[in-house]
């Protein structure tokens, strides 16, 4: 068959497919204008056949290109995967997230250990030699921190005084931008052979440890700990998990095992992604607690018990959430 006849014969099919595709690709189509799509799959098969014919018979490149693009568009629509969103989100929090964290427990443990060790080390150093704090924090920032966490009975602005609803929203925005940005960067940093992730864990750990140690030296620790204990649970956990997920990526490149490095990286990213969704949710929660609960001025006992409850609930969820009864070790 010559090309002109071929085109003439199948042109109506191509035109109709193009219309169906326009409709499928549009986000929303008015009900009245909707075309029936029950022939879409059959039409698509025919189109694939015609593309193969056009190539076999060496019809013009332009026609081949046109058919190729049409097949490409139809292929995209046919293999689109869109399960209902609400179900997936529900299932994710019920079992997907804690399960994903437990499956990668080794990496999260390494990440947590590097974080906790650097906290302890910095803390101990600053307790022993108070001036060591200046190796991680400069003087201006330190005096600001001291002012923020002054002992309750002394005069002057502590964090609780003079805060209004507006400040809470401001700080909420700040925590979201800052903390979630750090977590995402930690994850991506893991791709650089894990170095980026470990660096963030060590840096933040020693920073936190040095501040804590310093505030105990200067007597501001009660204001500090009553402030951080509640939101610290989701926040510190999330940073550790982001570090663990990042390490998993880095290790896939360092030691891919039986896979090629590229495949190992793909698998690692797929495994780590649920954890990152969870990290995002945890940090939203942390920002919310940090902005709206942590600065509230309550008795230290209340703050500590609420904080302890946060830690306990979060770890019960991560350790036992979504485990099937009798399913053995998760």
């Amino acid at each position: 068959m010559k090309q002109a006849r071929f085109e003439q014969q199948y042109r109506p099919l191509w035109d109709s497919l193009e219309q169906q595709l326009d409709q499928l690709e549009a986000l929303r189509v008015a009900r009245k204008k909707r075309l029936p799509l029950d022939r879409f799959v059959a039409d698509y098969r025919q189109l694939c056949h015609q593309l193969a014919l056009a190539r076999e018979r060496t019809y013009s490149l332009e026609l081949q290109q046109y058919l190729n693009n049409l097949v490409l568009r139809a292929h995209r629509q046919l293999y689109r995967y869109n399960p209902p969103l609400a179900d997936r989100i529900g299932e994710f929090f019920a079992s997907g997230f804690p399960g994903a964290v437990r499956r990668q427990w080794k990496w999260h443990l390494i990440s947590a250990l590097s974080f906790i060790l650097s906290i302890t080390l910095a803390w101990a150093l600053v307790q022993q030699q108070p001036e060591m704090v200046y190796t991680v924090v400069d003087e201006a920032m330190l005096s600001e921190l001291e002012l923020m966490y002054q002992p309750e009975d002394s005069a002057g602005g502590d964090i609780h005084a003079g805060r209004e609803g507006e400040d809470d929203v401001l700080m909420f925005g700040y925590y979201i931008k800052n903390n979630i940005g750090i977590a995402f960067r930690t994850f991506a940093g893991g791709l650089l052979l894990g170095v980026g992730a470990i660096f963030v864990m060590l840096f933040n750990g020693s920073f936190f440890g040095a501040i804590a140690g310093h505030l105990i030296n200067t007597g501001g620790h009660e204001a500090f700990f009553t402030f951080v204990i509640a939101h610290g649970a989701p926040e510190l956990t999330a940073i550790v998990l982001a570090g663990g997920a990042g390490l998993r990526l880095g290790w896939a490149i360092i030691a891919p095992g039986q896979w090629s490095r590229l495949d190992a990286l793909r698998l690692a990213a797929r495994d780590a992604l649920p954890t990152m969704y969870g990290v995002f949710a945890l940090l939203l929660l942390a920002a919310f607690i940090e902005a709206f609960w942590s600065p509230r001025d309550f008795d230290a006992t209340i703050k500590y018990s609420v904080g302890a409850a946060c830690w306990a609930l979060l770890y019960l969820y991560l350790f036992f959430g979504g485990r099937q009864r009798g399913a053995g070790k998760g």
Partner: protein
Amino acid sequence: MLIDERFEVETPEGAMLSLSLAGPVTRAMAYGIDLTLRLIIFAVLAIVLSLLGKMGIGLLLIIGFALEWFYPTLFEALRHGQTPGKKAMGIAVVHANGSPLSFNGSLIRNLLRTADAFPLFYLLGFVTTLISPRYQRLGDMAANTLVVHIEKTETTRKQHNDPANPPDWPLSAQDQLALLAFHERRDQFSEARQQELAQLAFPELSPQLALQRLRSVTRYLLEGAQ
């Protein structure tokens, strides 16, 4: 057709799809457009929200965060792999098997952007794009995605009244493709240039005759003898 790397994918129906991969320069330009757009959105919102005082700054920080991290993902997942910048440059993100980009795929490639941006100005991403045979940056490798050109081609061609004559030499598939491509581009060349090119095929004929000969064979290939 663009002069570019092509990547072949076989669909379950047995048709070979040919994707044309987008290179680093096109992608950088798309990124530049997106960046400008984001900065404009941010600046406009900054002016409006600054009227709301501290609460406005809080909202602005959240929006800035969303623009930085979720702008590409949302557009790519909802708009067939195209951010506005990619759309303007005629490129889109797809999975390596040619199927449309999923939300997860988009999220992986965009979360890992920081690693590609390391240490400055997307240097690492640029280098990996050049090394990778499929022009993938690190995020693309982890998500198994490709950035491809979305081509629009029309096949409505003008009618010409050339006489139709069968070729008098054994016609190879290559010859046929070359003739048809020459025919499809005839409006892009001047008559003189066409004659010049035609003479390469028939050095023994005059330029006018050589072109006539080519045209008549092409007409025959397209429509057969009349």
